[in-house]
């Protein structure tokens, strides 16, 4: 099938065409450009929710329960579930679907697992593009699940409208919560597996932190106790997502947030392209090898080597 035919089927709502198109983008095939041009004009309608947190905190299970609930209000939901690729074999075991079995036969729900393929920001390389494709396909809600994250993988918050950070009682005490990173990006915090010992302590630590950090903010991230497997707390989670959406709309923040994301993407892609162009230059490559030897033999410092390389940049076309 040609790309034109795929796109036509895509427009008709054909799931297999959707799936094939995602594969083309994920693998960076030649046809990507044509697809992205088509998709780019059709995005912006879906509301995007990000779910992040440590591995084993229950993100996939939460998504399954949340999506099931949201189905009573929305017909079309897309889910992107990221799992890590092996840095050794480059293979991956994508297991998020195990927790989402109850969604497999739901019409209107489309789940795609993505391996990170070397990306280190908690998401797969083309997560954003795949979310755009789902958006253009007509999904009203898109839920993006990160891989199990540590403290620094905050990229998800630039990709979505509402970020949900999931902790479990084992995530640590108040000091962990005070540390930077993950605790700064949540629009909503969830303490999952809240039947376990320590859940209430973590709950109050998070509440305290938010009370301190968001004193002058109109939006104070709520903290919710959930037990995803038992479907406990999901109703409240849904309610808070809607509250956050309303907050963004009433304060004209949704557009602002999305524009910021566009700027970021532009900057990132621009910088990446520049780097690519630089490394394609034979002159740069040659000089680089020379500089490596000079630094290695301690003839020049790293800083001096960098200066030499920068001088070469202006000759790159």
């Amino acid at each position, binding site marked *: 099938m040609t790309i034109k035919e795929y796109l036509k089927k895509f427009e008709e709502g054909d799931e*297999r065409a959707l799936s094939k198109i995602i594969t083309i983008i994920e693998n960076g095939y030649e046809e990507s450009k044509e697809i992205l041009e088509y998709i780019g004009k059709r995005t912006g309608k879906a509301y995007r929710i990000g779910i992040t947190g440590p591995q084993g905190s229950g993100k996939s299970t939460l998504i399954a329960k949340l999506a099931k609930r949201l189905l009573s209000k929305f017909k079309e939901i897309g889910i992107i579930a990221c799992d890590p690729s092996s840095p050794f074999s480059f293979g991956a075991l994508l297991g998020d679907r195990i927790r989402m079995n109850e969604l497999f036969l739901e019409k209107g729900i489309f789940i795609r697992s993505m391996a990170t393929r070397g990306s280190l920001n908690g998401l797969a390389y083309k997560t954003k593009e795949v979310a755009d494709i789902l958006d253009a396909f007509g999904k009203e809600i898109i839920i993006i699940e990160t891989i199990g994250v540590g403290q620094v993988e905050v990229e998800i918050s630039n990709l979505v409208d509402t970020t949900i950070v999931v902790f479990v009682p084992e995530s640590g005490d108040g000091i962990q919560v005070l540390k930077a990173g993950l605790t700064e990006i949540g629009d909503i915090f969830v303490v999952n597996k809240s039947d376990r010992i320590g859940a209430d302590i973590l709950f109050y630590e998070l509440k305290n932190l938010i009370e301190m950090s968001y004193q002058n903010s109109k939006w104070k991230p709520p903290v919710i106790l959930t037990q995803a497997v038992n479907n406990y707390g999901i109703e409240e989670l849904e309610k808070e997502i809607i509250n956050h959406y309303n907050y963004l709309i009433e304060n004209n923040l949704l557009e602002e947030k999305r524009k910021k994301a566009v700027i970021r993407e532009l900057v990132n892609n621009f910088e990446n392209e520049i780097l690519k162009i630089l490394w394609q230059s034979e002159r740069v490559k040659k000089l680089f090898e020379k500089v490596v030897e000079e630094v290695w033999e301690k003839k020049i410092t790293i800083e001096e080597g960098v200066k030499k390389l920068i001088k070469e940049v202006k000759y790159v076309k």
Partner: protein
Amino acid sequence: MEKKKIKILIAKPGLDGHDRGAKVVARGLRDAGFEVIYTGLHQTPEMIVNTAIQEDVDIIGLSILSGAHMTIFPEVLRLLKEKGATDIHLFGGGIIPDEDKEKLYQMGVGKLFDPGTKISEIVEYINNLFKEKVSE
């Protein structure tokens, strides 16, 4: 241009609850560099085929130890045909008598592996299937 990553769905249909084999195979295929999706126990043919289509896998591997292979393999094949996804290769493993294997092969099912198979044999089988695809 990145090369195509081969995506494999390892599925455990029906009521039997023994998925150690499926997990070992999934893990082994991961270590061989494939992207493997494992969806857990008790999958129906509909769930398997839906997943295969949404994930755009190249190949489905079914693990069946319950004796239901003569029902499940044909049903998965039928659904793949119905959804126009006959390009997805179906293979499997489990306790399957030789005469049943023959019948399934004739229907279009790929290789059926016995208990005790080395992971490397399965890897080699898949690599041979997709030799052209990988070198594209």
